[in-house]
């Protein structure tokens, strides 16, 4: 109990230092733009104003920034979810039965090395609307999740499997009680990587995809108008969402994998 109290204070100190660092960063940015007086280096305040304008009046086409955020996030989550639903079970299956992976390697591996962005032209031809983006994100997130899971299954400590086996446990028991819990931390890491790649993909897909909603398109609209403030707003919003999602992952990991964080007494 004493530990969690300590941890609480530790978190507060970390938050404090981060606020300080952020403050210094904004000050330096402000100073730099103020000294340079360049049109291409807007001050933090004009960027903030641009954000508020985008949130109240919308962009050049009258589309609110919240709508852009909503569209991008929805696409990401759809593709990401599909990637998890397919990648995790498939990774576990192929990890448990290396035969399956070995005999399909000639399909899996080359496909893995085709960058999701290279799929965009084909996808634009074959798919429409929402499914375009979901597919590209699925493609980007699927492989890190699938490969991460597969490798994690291969690294399960053999003695952890021998223990239930020595008591005569059935295969399903070993999968449920040993393989899955033991690979879960690595699967989580793989999911985080997949989520990051999903964001890479959505930006590219939205910039090429030709619809008028989504953060990627929003940035592109203002690039064409050479409006630096709004471009920076778009980028910062993406960064902030990514950071937020990553923190959620970390929060869940701390809760679920308490056994990993535990402090030794000797």
């Amino acid at each position, binding site marked *: 109990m004493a530990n969690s109290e300590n941890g609480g204070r530790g978190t507060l100190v970390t938050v404090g230092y981060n606020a300080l660092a952020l403050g210094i960063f904004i000050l330096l940015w402000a100073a730099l733009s103020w000294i340079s007086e360049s049109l291409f280096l807007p001050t933090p305040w004009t960027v903030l104003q641009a954000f508020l304008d985008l949130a109240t009046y919308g962009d050049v086409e009258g589309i609110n920034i919240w709508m852009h955020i909503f569209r991008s996030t929805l696409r990401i989550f759809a593709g990401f979810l599909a990637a998890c639903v397919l990648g995790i079970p498939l990774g576990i299956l192929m990890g448990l039965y290396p035969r399956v992976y070995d005999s399909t390697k000639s399909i899996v591996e080359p496909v893995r090395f085709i960058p999701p962005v290279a799929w965009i032209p084909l996808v634009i031809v074959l798919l429409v609307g929402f499914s375009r983006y979901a597919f590209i994100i699925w493609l980007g997130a699927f492989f890190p999740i699938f490969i991460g899971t597969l490798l994690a299954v291969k690294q399960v400590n053999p*003695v*952890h499997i021998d*223990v*239930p086996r020595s008591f*005569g446990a*059935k295969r399903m028991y070993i999968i449920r*009680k040993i393989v899955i819990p033991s690979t879960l931390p690595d699967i989580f890491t793989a999911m985080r990587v997949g989520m990051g790649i999903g964001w890479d993909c959505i930006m590219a897909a939205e910039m090429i995809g030709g619809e008028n909603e989504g953060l990627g398109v929003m940035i592109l609209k203002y690039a064409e108008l050479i409006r630096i403030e709004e471009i920076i707003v778009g980028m910062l919003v993406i960064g902030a969402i990514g950071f937020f999602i990553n923190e959620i992952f970390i929060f869940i990991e701390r809760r679920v994998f308490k056994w990993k964080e535990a402090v030794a*007494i000797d």
Partner: protein
Amino acid sequence: MDQELIDAQITMKFDDMTVLEDLQFKVHRNEFLVLVGPTGCGKTTLARLLGGLLKPTRGHVNIGGEQVNPKIHNISFVFQEPSCIPWRTLWDDIYMGLEIKGVDPKTSEARTREVIKLVGLDGFEAYFPKQISGGMKQRVAIARAYATKPDFLLMDEPFGHLDAQTRYLMQIEIMKIWESEKKTVAYITNNIEEAVYLATRIIVLSRLPASIKAEHHIRLARPRNLTSPDFLKLRKEIAQQCEIVE
């Protein structure tokens, strides 16, 4: 009293390498049999064969006349490597065998409490393996093995990873546990002192391919004195048979 439980007759080959060559022995009920042999003589392979985790190339391991199978027979295994399950608390870890055997929860809980007490881990039920010492982890493995009241308990160098002092304390401990709850034990080790301290009978194994070099019935009174002349004499004799010059 001299009823036999295990009848082993094993030849084991991995590819071209013969690890065990027509090894024949029996394990009697309630005896503490120690199989001692030099490092790398296939002791772990032998343990896995006895526990039904491996099948012999030729021959058989029978328990009560049937081929050994952990799905059917009540066997427990204490592994050489630290084998605590990292995401399970001590309680859940020790409970595992009972869970697999499908023992009803009420009996399982009572039994888990009993063995935790037996190995002296009461108060640590909610701890994770990461939080406890190496000696405690091996106690967990012993408690887990004892929990299912096995007909046959296999221990494969269970204290091999511990420092000398902890190891000695654990030997005293395992004897206490065994004396309070007699089980048929096959204990595998390369440590001769440990063998003479624990065994009711010792089988000395040769180098690869392993075969039986000698057999000793140990009739020294317990608790055994590591420095008594009888103890030292036996120890020396076995060391010579093991081709370890002392």
